[in-house]
Structure formats: C-alpha cells, structure tokens
C-alpha cells in the first residue's frame, strides 16, 4: 500500500515537472532601433510575423523600441543603451541604421536582425549572403540591385524621359552603391542622371524643391536614410513640379506624388525577418542564418499621381503592374 502511494506521488511529481502548461517559458526581450517613423511598417510586420509564429507580445516576447527620428547619434545611443540592457536580439531597418547597430554591438555580439536593409554585403556589413559570418542577419530589401530595373521600368513607363534627378544620401554606403549602379545603368539606357547627394532630411526636401522640369524629366529615389525619410516631402515637391517620381517600396507608392514603385515592402520584409528572429531566439547563431531576399518584388503604379501630373500609363504597362493605386477604386 505504501509502495502504491509512493508511485502515485512520483507520477504526479513527474507530471507536474514535465507538463508544458506548468513549465514557465522564457520571456524574450527584443530591442528595436527604428531609424525613423518612415519604417514603422517594418516593425508592424515583424510583430505580426512573431505573433504568427506563436510569440504573444507581453507574455512570450517584449519589444523595447526607440525611434531615432533620423538621427544617427541617437541610433548609436539607443543601441548602446539596449546593449547594456542585454536583450536577446536587436532589430533594425535600413542600411545606415544597421551599420550603426552592427558596429555598436560588435563587442557584445548581441544578435542583430534587420528587416529591410539594402546591400548588407555590398556595403561590407557582412561577409556574404549565405554565411553572414557575423552576429548580424536579416532580410535585404534588394533596393540597390533593383536600381537598374527601376530605371529601366521608369524608362519603359516614360519613354520620353532623358534626364533624371536622383536623390540619395551623401554618406550612406547604400546610397553610394546605388548611385554607382544608377549612373552605370543610365548610361546603358541612354539616360542622363543628375545625382543629388543630401546630408539630411531637410536637405533632401530643399533639394527636391529646387528641381524643376527644366532640370530633369523625372525624380528617382536612391535608397538612403535621409532620402527615404524625406520621401513624403520629395513626393509633394515632385507633384508640385509635375515631375514623375520613382520610388521602390510599397509604402512609398501610396504617397501622393509617387508615380511608380518596383520593390518589396517594409512590412513584408519585417514579417519575413520574424522567421529569422524566431531561429535566433531559439539559439541559432545569426552567422549561420543566410540573409534572405524579399519573397516578392512588385511593380505598383500610382494612377492618381499620374493623373495629377498629367501623364497616362500605356495599357501594356498597366497590364504588367502587380497593383494600381487608384483612389476611385479604393473601397
């Protein structure tokens, strides 16, 4: 009888210990260094991706976020502050922010996941796409390599365009690489590229204000912290000057003044990067996780902007588009 009682107690104890409902799961802490609110959709995508993977915010995972408002110094300070708090990983967006975060976490080797950073290999942040061989991994936006294709599409959409004003950052590695590629492609396509290298968001807007139809036939967005953070302002100026404005992300094309976009989406990239963050939180070193490219690249045309600036898309172009932004068709 005594033996029976012991066996029942042992079984109950074993059940108690092994029961998944009773074992306390670890709550993960993920810091987010957001370079500017322009990339907020990336964070939304990340969180949704994590939720889909079973992480309940506030219970299984806690996000610590700081919006640097386009200030690189603040990005650095935020990163340092986060590193001191020893989060399980740091998430960020854009090549510029990634560079700051990667440098600041170099010593601590805090895992860094990026949601949408252009050219991490080309700008030397990691050794390669397959094996980053670093504490950094994520989803590249592909915005640098797509510069060629975007210029080609711009040319196909607007065959009369000859001179294109390209606005990008002066210092950002991604901008430098994109400028180089854009200049090379422009030559191939018989276009004249007028690079406008900016040093701040305000500078970008001010520069855009100065572009008139005499100076250029279209404005082209080069990936960069300041250029992208000023995308709304630039689009407004393009609209005012009735100049076509080519962007590259889903989020940009919805802005009035943006004409066409060819690329991915911060939101989708963020969601895709959740898969990588999940693996990192489960203990896989970031260096062993290949950098992923967006699963979708879409051509989106803003029909409203086309109307606003007085141009129309050819039917074949419209048929190629994956999505059209058209107010009248919006529900």
């Amino acid at each position, binding site marked *: 009888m005594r033996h029976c009682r012991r066996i029942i107690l042992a079984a109950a104890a074993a059940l108690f210990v092994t029961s998944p409902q009773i074992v306390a799961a670890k709550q993960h802490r993920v810091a987010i260094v957001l370079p500017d609110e322009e990339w907020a959709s990336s964070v939304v995508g990340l969180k949704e991706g994590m939720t889909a993977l079973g992480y309940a915010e506030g219970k299984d995972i806690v996000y610590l976020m700081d919006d640097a408002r386009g200030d690189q110094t603040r990005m650095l300070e935020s990163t340092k502050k986060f590193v001191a708090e020893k989060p399980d990983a740091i998430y960020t967006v854009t090549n510029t922010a990634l560079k700051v975060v990667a440098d600041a976490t170099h010593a601590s080797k805090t895992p860094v996941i990026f949601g949408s950073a252009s050219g991490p290999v080309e700008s030397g942040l990691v050794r390669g796409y397959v094996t980053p061989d670093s504490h950094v991994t994520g989803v590249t936006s592909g915005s640098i390599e*797509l510069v060629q294709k975007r210029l080609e599409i711009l040319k196909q959409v607007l065959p009369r365009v000859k001179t294109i004003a390209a606005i990008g950052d002066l210092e950002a590695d991604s901008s430098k690489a994109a400028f180089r590629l854009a200049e090379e492609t422009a030559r191939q396509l018989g276009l004249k590229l007028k690079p406008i290298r900016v040093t701040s968001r305000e500078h970008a807007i001010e520069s855009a204000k100065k572009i008139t139809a005499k100076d250029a036939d279209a404005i082209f967005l080069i990936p960069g912290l300041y250029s992208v953070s000023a995308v709304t302002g630039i689009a407004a100026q393009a609209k005012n000057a009735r100049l076509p404005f080519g962007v590259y992300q889903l989020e940009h094309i919805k802005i009035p003044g943006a004409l066409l976009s060819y690329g991915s989406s911060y939101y989708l990239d963020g969601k895709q990067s959740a898969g990588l963050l999940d693996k990192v939180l489960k203990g896989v070193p970031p260096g062993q*996780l290949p950098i992923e490219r967006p699963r*979708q690249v879409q051509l989106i045309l803003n029909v409203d902007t086309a109307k606003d600036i007085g141009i129309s898309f050819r039917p074949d172009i419209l048929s190629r588009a994956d999505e059209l932004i058209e107010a009248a068709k919006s529900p």
Partner: protein
Amino acid sequence: MKFFVLRTLQARLVRTLVIAVAIIAATFFFVWRLTIEPALKNGVARQQKETAEHAAGDIGEFIQHRVQQMIAVGEIVRLWEMKSEEQKKSLYRLMKLDPEIREIAIADVHGRETLRLSRLRVYTKDDLAFLGSEEKFRRPASGESYIGPVYHDVTAEPLVTLAVPIRFTPKEIRGVLLAEVSLKNLWTSIASIKVGHAGYTFVVDRAGDLIAHPDYSKVLLKLNYSSVSTIADFLNKRNAGVGVSRIRKGSNGAAVIANYATVAEPMWAVVVEEPVETALAEVKQVKEVALFILAFTLVGVFSISYVFSQRIARPVRELEQGASLIAQGAWDQKLDIRTGDELEGLAQRFNEMAEALKKSYAGLEEKITERTRDLSALYATLAPLGSSNADQLLHDVLERLKEATQADAILIRIFDKETKTFPHKASIGFPENFLASLRPVAKDSVTHAVFTSGEPMIIADIASHPRLTTKRHLTAGLLSAAFLPLEISGEIRGVIHLASRKLRGFTEHKTEHLMTIAHQMGVAMHNRELFEEAQNRLRRIHALREIDLAISSTLDVRNVLDILMDKIDLVLPHAAVTVRLLDKDRRVLRPVACRNLDETEWRAGPWTFGRGLASIPLETQSPLIIRNVLSDPRVRDLEFYRKHNLRSYVGVPLIVKEQSLGVLGFYSKDDHEFTNEDVDFLATLAAQAAVAIHNSQLFERSEDNLARVRALREIDLAITSTLETSSVLGLLLEKINVFLPFHAATVRLYNRETKNLDVIAAKNIDEQLWKDHSHETGRRAGSYAWTVFESKQPLAISNIARDSATRRAFLQQQGIISFLGVPLIVKEETLGVLTLYSRMEREFRSEEIEFLSTVAGQAAIAIHNAQLYAELRKQAAALAKSNRIKDEFLSVMSHELRTPLSGIIGYTGLIRDKLIGPTTSKQNEALDKLMNRAKDLMAMISSILFATSIDADEVRVIRSKFSAVDLLNDLKTDYELPSQKTVAFRWDYPANLPALTTDREKLKSILQNLINNAVKFTLGGAISVEARMLGKTNGNGIGSKSGDFIEFKIADTGIGIPEAKLGVIFEKFRQVDGSETRLFGGVGLGLYIAKSFTELLEGDIKVASKEGRGSIFTVKIPCGMDEEAEAQPGTGRDPRPEPKA
C-alpha cells in the same frame, strides 16, 4: 532472493510459477517483436510513403505546369512571328502570371538569344548570349522539354532552368523559350505538409542537394544530404517502391523513420522524416497497454497460484515442525493433522516414532550424568590456571582437584635434576609431620616407579601394599592412595600423590580421568613457565625500547646513561652499575657514571686511571664475566669489592664502528651465575649506550666547530667592515678568548725599522711591564714569539717550566704556565705573531692550534689591508694637492695671458683695418696670420679656463627659454669656413623645432666645440649639422614637454677617429694624434668641454667614427619643461596641462 534457492515445497511451487510466467512473457515479447510491432511500424512507413508520393506529385505538377505553360505561350501566342516589343509584352505577361519565373529568354533556332527579361536585372543586346552548345538549348531544339539541374544565385536562392521548343508546326521548331524558375517558394508548400506530430518534408535534387525545406535557411546554406541514409537510398534507387519502417539517422542527425518518393521528370526526391519518438508514439502506446494487460494477468495468476500453494504447504510445514520438535526430544509432542490424506498418515507414523524414542532414552540419562560430573571436575581443575601467582595457582588447583577426585590429601612432587630428589612443590590435606618426614625417593619407591614408568598407580588399601611406606600414611589416617605421573611438555617432571581416608578403588575409567587431570596440570604448569619467561623478556624489551627512545630524544650523555642504569637496575636488581669512557688522548678509562655506589668515592678511587678489570673488555672488545671477584687473580682492587660487598662482575665494552668507547660494568652482591641472556641483555644495552655516547660526542664536536666557524665569520665581518687595525685586533682577541680561553694575549707586528716585534694589541697584560721585558716576551730573538716569527710555524708549550730552551723567568713571574703562538702571514710574508698565555697548565689540541692559525691568517689580511689603506690615503692626499696647484696655476696663467692677448688682437685689428696707417698687401697677409694665430691662442686659453672651471665645480647652469631654431640660425651665420678648405656645410633642421628651456650658452658652446672639431679635422668633403625632436613633441613648433629631447648630430667626412681612441677622446688634453709632429693644433679640450657641458645639461653625447671616413657626434639634450607655454594661454599652443615631471 533467499526464497528462490529454498528447497521448500512452496518455494518450488513458486519457482515453477515464475518460470511459467517468464515463458508467457517471452512468448508475448517474441510475438510483439516479430508480428505486431513490425505491422504497426510498417503502417507508419506506408503513411509516410503516401505523404511523400503525394508531395512528389505536387512538385512534379509544379514543374510540368510551367513547362506546359511555356509550350502554350510559345505555340498559342505565336511568339515566332512577333516583333521584339510584342514578344516582350507577352513574356512580361507570362512573368506576371507566374511570379516564380525570375528570368525568361527566347533563343532563335541557332541558339542565339534574341530577348532576355528579368525581374531583377536589365539586359541589353550586349548581354544576350549564345546558347547553341548548351544542353538547355540543344534538348528543346530537338523537340524535347528540358528541366535543368538546380543551381543557386548569388544569394543562394535555388533556381531551375526550364526550356521548351517554340514550334511553328508539330515538326518545325522556330526557337526555344527558356525560363529561370525560382524554387524559393517551394518551401511554403513543403512546409504546409503535415507529417505525424513532428515530422517534416524536404526535397533534394538528383545530386542530393537540398532545394526545399520548411526551414528555408537550410536551403540557402546549400546543404547536401547525399550522406543521409534515405537520400543515399534515393540516389542508389533503393527502396523506391515500398515504405521503410527501419529507424535510421535523419538529416538533422537524430533517429527518424523516413521515406521518400521520386519526382520522376527532374529526378528529385521528396523525403518525409519524422523523429522516432513521435513517429512510433502510437506503437509505443499500444505496447504499453499490452504490457499492462500482460503484467496484470501475470500478477493475477501469480497471486492465485500463491494462495493455492500456501494451502498445500501449510500441513506439510506443520508436519515438518512437529517432526522437528520430536527430533529435539519433545517426545510428548503429538502431531494433529487431519487432512484425510497421506499427510495425516505420515503424522501418525511420527507420533509412534516419538513414543519409541522416549523409551530408549531413559537408560542413557544416568550415564550422561556421570560423564558430565567428570567433565565438570576436569573443567574445575583447570579453571584457576590463569592465575598470576604461581603458588596460589598450585594451591587453587589442588583444592579443585581434591574436590573433583574426592581425595582427602593431595601432594605434588617435582623432580630436581641437580639434587636428584623429589621435593614437594605443593600439598593439601597432608599433615605437617607427614610432609616433614618425606625423604629422598628410593628407587624402589612407588613415587620413583611412577616417575620412571609414566604409568599411574592406584593403591586401594595402603595397609596391604608391599612397596608403600604404610606407617606414615596410616599415621595420617590415609587408607588408600593414587600416584599419577606429572608430564610437562612431553617429559615426566614429577608425581601427583592423592590419598584418601577411605578404602577406595578406582575404576579404569576413573583412573583415566585422573590421568587426564594430571596431564592438564602438566600443560598448565608448562604454560606458566612459558608465561613467566615471556614476561621477563617483555620487561627487557621495554627497557631496551625506553633506552632507544632516550637515545633518539637527547644528545645529553648523562641522561642516556641515567636511563641505561635505571633499566639495568630494574631488570637485574640488587646490583651496582658503572660506566667508564675512554680518554683517547691519554688512553685511559675515565669514570663517568655509577649506580648503587657512592659516586664521589668511586670516582676518587686510586684505581680510577689504572688498568682495572674494565680494561680487559675494552681491549678484547668482548664481555668479561667473573662469578667471584674475590677469587679471581685478575682483580687488583679487592678492597673496593670487599667494601661494597660485591661478588660477581660483568664488564661489557661500549663499541661503535668497531671502536671501543668505554666499558659498562655490572656487579652483584652475591655469587651470581650470569646466564647468556643476562650477558646478551647487558651487551645490547651497552651497544645502544655506545651509539648514544658516540652521537653525543659527534654533536658536541660539531657544535664546537660551528661556534668556531661563527667566530671566524664574525672576525671576517669585522675585518671587512673597518680598516682600523686596533679595533679589528681587539675584536679578534675577544673572539679567541671565547673559544680558546687564555689569561693574556698579544698581537705583535714586525717593525722593519727597529727590527723588533712591537705589541700593537694586547689583552690582560701590563704593556709597559711587558715592554720592559721585551727580550723575554717577544720583541727580540730568543723569546717564544720570536721563535714563532722566525720559524713561521705555530708553537705550543704546555708547561714552560719544563721548557729550558727559551727565556722564561719573566713569564714565570707573571704566573704563565702554557704558551701558544702562531705567525701572522700574508702572501708568504710574516707580519708578526699572535700569542696566547695561560696561567694553567694545558695541552693545546691540534684543532685549537689550527683554529688559532686560521684566525691569525685573517688577522694578517686585516693588518695588511689596513697598511695598504693608510698608504693609499697618503698618496691620494698628495695627488689632490698637486692637482689643486695645477688648476690654480692654469687659471692664473690663463687670466694673465688673456689680458695681453686681447690687446694683441685689438691692435692687430686696428692695423689690419688701416686705422693706424696704410699697410702693404704683404703686411696685411702677415697681419691676417698674426690675427688667426692670436685668435687660436685666445680660443685655447678660453678652453683651458672652461676646463679649469669645470674641474673646480664652478660652472653653473643658467636655464632660460629660447628658440632652438634661432640658436641654430645664429650658429649657421657664425660659421665661415676657412678659405683654404673646400668643405661644404649642410644645415638640416625643421623650422618648427620647439622652444628649449636650458642653458643656451652652454648648448651653443657644445655645438661650437663639435663643429669646430669637425671643421678642424675635415680637409675636404662635407659637414652636416642636423637637429630633430625626440619624444612626445615631434616638431610641431610649440613648446616642448617634460620628457622630450632634442638631438643634434654633427657629422663630418674628416679623418675620423681610430676605434682604439674612441674611449679617450673626451678626456682632457687628449688628441688622437698626440705626437709633437701632429698636423692639427689645439690643446685637446674641445671635446672634454662638450662632454662636460652636455652632462651638466643632463644630456648625453656619443660618437661614431671610422678612421679615414669621418665622425658623427650625437648630442641629446632634454628640452626642459615648457613652463611659459603653460602660463600663457591663447598663444596658439595646446592649452591642456601636461603632467609635470
């Protein structure tokens, strides 16, 4: 466990049951393993196989769908007849329809690409390729569809090339349509496939490369799974048709159940894996349920069987217990078993058997009682044998024996081998007069007969016995007797005599019993003897051990000897003990210690130093045993023995390493026959004592040596710490007195002038009185001291009264008896004599003389050093004086020369400048030479003055802040090369050299001297003057910092300096060529001044030179603290404060 080896009926039943259960369990096991489990596992495998095949179908469709789509586009849209722009539009539409197409291209019939579109890249005409030789063109060009191998792009995404012919007619092909299809999104469909609870699906290509996996990162890592067992099956086309339920190693290394299905056209494999734990979870569950049912059944069967066996076994057990009680003697026990079967009959037979046994036992009881009494008697007799007192023991034994044998008197007689008699050892019950009347046993007596035959003799009626003296027994009322031989250790040693006041005979059994008792008594007595002997030996061993402990715990001889004598006294009491030790110097035995004698009297005995009995064992190195000293002719001091009433003597030598140290003497007060054991014991004690004495002597000697070494060291320290002879010698005599006590001592040194031995240190003598008698005490020849001085050998006189060769009257007046003198010798020269005097006669031992000689050697060195030191001081004083005179002379002379020379130069200049009147060219030439020579002379005098000031320590450093560049600029402008030399000057210094804080004039003088030197010794070639900063301030033009240095380098291509001269060129009045006929002038002070000034400025000067090639002088000067820079902010300098040195 014990239960399973029991041979009980119940145990057997249970064992049979266990075996049956085991057979059932084994049967279940085999049935499970051979049929049920494989069937269940195969079910899992089949399920996996179906899943894999279904997925393979989907993937095949994924590929084929695209192939068909491309064929359709080629044929239906009529691509071949379209223009390029139209083709583009069509292909763009196709790409929009199929997002997996990354790139698409059209090649003409020759294999040339005419169009290529991409989602990511821009292709121009220049980028179009020729594909004519490639498989991806040739196969479609021949009418087949082409599905290429999987490849990865730069970001490792997997892609596959699909190519189809563009047909004009079913037979005519106008081109080829190629598409690069991304397999990236294949993972979504793969990931959605559910396999069991934790299984997954992945796809590999025909090379085993991973192309789709739920974990997309693994695809990007381009993993190759060809070594995974399932993939190896696929690659080797094994197990393609059936599901495999075997547990194998999966792609992640864990144990899995895995199966695959082939995608036929591209020859890929869809693999389904599931960890064993989850894949076989249901099998395990079934197994557990089955096991539970089996276990429950077995336990039930076992329990029922156990109860049944209990019912059978109980009456059998009762039968067994009853039989057991009967066997133990409980014959009244009745077995009451009523089972009605064979067991009941068996119980009845047992009852009958118990009744029969009860009857037969009754006769035996009486016999056993008698036997028990005999055994009790024997036990009672032997019980007191453990007593420690021998007499008491015998008495007790007799008492018990009397009681046991029911005798009235018992007597024990032991045979005495010496007297050949049978004295009685113990008795009880015999009257005194009976015992007193016992006579030596006659050979025809009963006692003798029993003793010799070893057979007992029983006399039932004494009165009628012919051989027994009846009167004595009858008088004592004793009517019957028994005589038993007493055997001890196999030898008949006596007889036990029992007597009774009743007439009684002994049966054979009784006699045998008495013999047993007698034998046991013999054994007991023998044991008693052995016990006493062992006790004695133990006492001796204890004594030896304690002495051994004493020896190892102390080095004090007296302690050891005391313990030694205590132990001898304890083990061999009533005796006197003495210890004498050998005086090696005099070869006599000295009394050291004694016990049970008056030590003072013993020591003072007239024979103490004589050749007594002790000398014999000392010389023979073997013990001497004398039973009666009074009758031994070797004993000389009979009076001593008589006085102390000593009779026997044993002398044992104290020997260590075959050398006799002394003798241990042992005396007894009666004639004592010393046994070998006694002598061995004393010899062992003596050997131990000898070791202790030897150790002690060695210890004392080493202590003495150590003390002497210490004294020598202290003397050595004193000598090296001072050069004052008198204090050294005073200490010397103090130390000597400690180790070699004397009444007076002197140290005498030989005076070369007076040729006397003068006293320079003395102790305890009236020096004046001794000087007055110097002819005796040592000043002159004939004295002991002089003899030592002359012979250079130590001299020891134990009693000067017995020495007639030397003058000694004064010494005798002073009470001096002994003398010891040793010479003071350094480098084979005798400096004097060290003498010791004693007012007691004493023999100086060789080690004492050796010690004093060593001390004298040290003293001689000290005296010699002091003499050398005094000489040196004299010479140094003379040198300093002459140097001072020289400096004063040079200073005065230089001053006196400068004044007139200034006048000469001044006036020569006036004449040369024609201020006094016109001069001719020849006069000018002469005046120039005169001016040059005068300037040379002036420079020479200035140098001498500088050098004199430096030597007189009159030069002071006056620090100020100045610009290094300005200094160098000044120097640069100052220098004009002699016109007759073709030497080029090169000045190399940065314009932003920092300001220096040092003595500007001295630095300038250093550089001038070095440059002058270079100019002087360079006939042709170049001279370079360089300056640079060393340290933190690296020529930034602002103030220097503490710790910075400026380095000047003056290099020339002159005659150079021979290597051998490099070490002396900075000395005063030194020139490489010091001959009278030297080519270059100068007094040789320039480099001396340069070096002296450099050192004053806390700098460093170095030279490197090669003869005939030139010289390089490098001067490094500290820049000094730039205090001004700190005090003046806003001057463009770094305002941050520097740490001050």
